[in-house]
């Protein structure tokens, strides 16, 4: 479903980052591990089309994602990619339910309720994001990520800020939701707690 080949990226004034090729199929999960500063988030943003690679290609469903125009990329990301971040970003002035409906490609309200039920946040829908605990916020951002029934879920350190109990809960939710949407799941993390739970792993080498 998702494949990358010879990806590199160079920030101005620093050494070029070269990434190992990755490949993940629909319904499967891939863990990309590495220490801070090795370019995990950069790789994830390349995969999400938030940055353009310096060289190399990204294929999604055999389409050359990395060569799409920025408008096509934005549209594709909105429609087919769900993103989860380490910090839960929300529109602070909107209630949780409106945050779930934020994307122009999000489903309707009935879908919100069924997802909220599955993620056990249905009591929180009328609340403001700041009124939720960190674990609740992370569940709400997973809910938002799957609102558009994505084909690919990209998660950036989704568990780093969570305690063990919440960590496992969030990981399981991500895996379950990816499976039920038949979506590919890519998690980048330095959180070693996840290594035992996802077999398919890629390690990024630290940059010197």
């Amino acid at each position, binding site marked *: 479903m998702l494949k990358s080949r010879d990806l590199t990226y160079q920030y101005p004034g620093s050494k070029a980052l070269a990434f190992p090729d990755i490949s993940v199929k629909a319904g499967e999960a891939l863990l990309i591990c590495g220490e801070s500063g090795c370019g995990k988030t950069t790789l994830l943003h390349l995969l999400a089309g938030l940055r353009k690679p310096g060289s190399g290609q990204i294929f999604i469903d055999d389409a050359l994602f990395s060569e799409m125009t920025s408008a096509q990329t934005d549209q594709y990301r909105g429609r087919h990619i769900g993103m989860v971040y380490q910090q839960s970003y929300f529109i602070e002035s*909107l209630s949780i339910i409106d945050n779930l409906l934020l994307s122009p490609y999000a489903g309707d309200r009935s879908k919100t309720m069924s997802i909220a039920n599955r993620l056990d946040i249905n009591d929180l829908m009328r609340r403001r994001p700041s009124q939720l605990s960190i674990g609740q916020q992370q569940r709400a951002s997973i809910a938002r990520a799957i609102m558009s029934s994505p084909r690919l879920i990209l998660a950036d350190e989704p568990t780093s800020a969570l305690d063990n109990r919440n960590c496992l809960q969030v990981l399981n939710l991500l895996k379950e939701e990816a499976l039920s949407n038949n979506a590919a799941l890519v998690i980048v993390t330095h959180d070693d707690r996840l290594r035992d739970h996802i077999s398919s792993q890629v390690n990024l080498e630290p940059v010197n």
Partner: protein
Amino acid sequence: MLPKIAWKNLIHKPLNTALCVSLLMFGVGIISVLLLMQHQLEQKFERDLRDIDLVVGAKGSPLQLVLSAVYHLDAPTGNIKLAEARKVMDNPIVEEAIPLAYGDSYQGYRILGTTPDYLEKYNAELRDGRLFSKSMEATLGAAIVERTGLQVGDTFLGTHGDVREGHVHEEHPYTVVGVLKSTNSVLDQLVLTNIESVWDVHAVHGDEDDHDHEGDHDHDHDHEGDHDHDHEGDHDHDHEGDHDHDHEGDHDHSDATVDRDSMEITALLLKYKSRMTMLNIPRIINDQTNMQAVLPGLEINRLFYMLGVGATTLKLIAGGIMAMAGFSVFFVLYNRLRERKHELALMRSVGYRPGHLFGLLLFEGLLLAVFGYLLGWLLSRLGIYFINRQAESDFNLQFGWGWVPGEWWLLLLTFLVGIISALLPAWRAMRMDVSKILSDN
């Protein structure tokens, strides 16, 4: 979703929003009141001017003469001799000459002695009764009837001068013979009668006896009940006190035949057959007679120029407030941009295009402008309401609430202030580095 985000964001920070909106409100409110008053005053002055080419009256301030004779707003400059006026009226280039005579008022409304031509000039129509035809008959303007409740057949007494508490001419009651429909002109505020009535009340008409005009007139006439016109009684007028009615002692009524030309009127409204000759006549009148001739349009332009200086100052102040409002919209949106950068980056990551963010911020600026405008509009109408309460009692003047053409420009200006102030923040939102913002934890 975008309008909802814009709206929620504005009410999420109510103080920021209140600051922007209230500054816009005051700017819009002040400018709106000025526009309303200026437009309506100009319209009213234009409408009441009709086709009066020249105003002739006693020497004095030309503006005062126009204000008193055309708009009935100021005191008259004095009286002129009918004989002298007659020379101007009989000039062949004059198409129409309407004499005006005043002196009295009823409950603050002027009693104007004139001819039916005057009513025709303002396209007056009768609602009730008929036009005045004899002395001491009065036809009332619509506003007076509304306010005083006088009806056809009623009688009332004039008060000397313009003041409500002046001397009352108790011996000379007027009879209401007609009521006019509203014409939205000065007629609405006038008690109309013929010139003879004014002369009668002030007792110079038809008297052939030797008047004892000593000192100033008080019009405290001692008519001893027999002020009939049998020309026999011994009218011992006891003029004293401080009334200045320009009768200054030169009444020569000793002739057996009364020459009306020795009577006085207050002013003369002229219309020429052709405007070509207009420039000469005033000069001749001003140079060769005791009267002055004034081009009313010129004086009114001068008045508006003078009023305009004050209005311009106020407009500059209001413009300054608008500019500050624009800056506050800019600062609020720009500052919020820093707090909201993660939200905006998030929006990009869920599929919004840079153009959407640009539009969102512009829309927020526009929303502030819309609310500022609406509240400013309300404020201006509230202002007009209070100005009306004052103006009604002081000048018999009422401003309408209606939309005036200049307000379209004000609306456009307000929207532009909102949009232009939001341009830079919107540009920044559009150009931000989403990936960088989402990666700094």
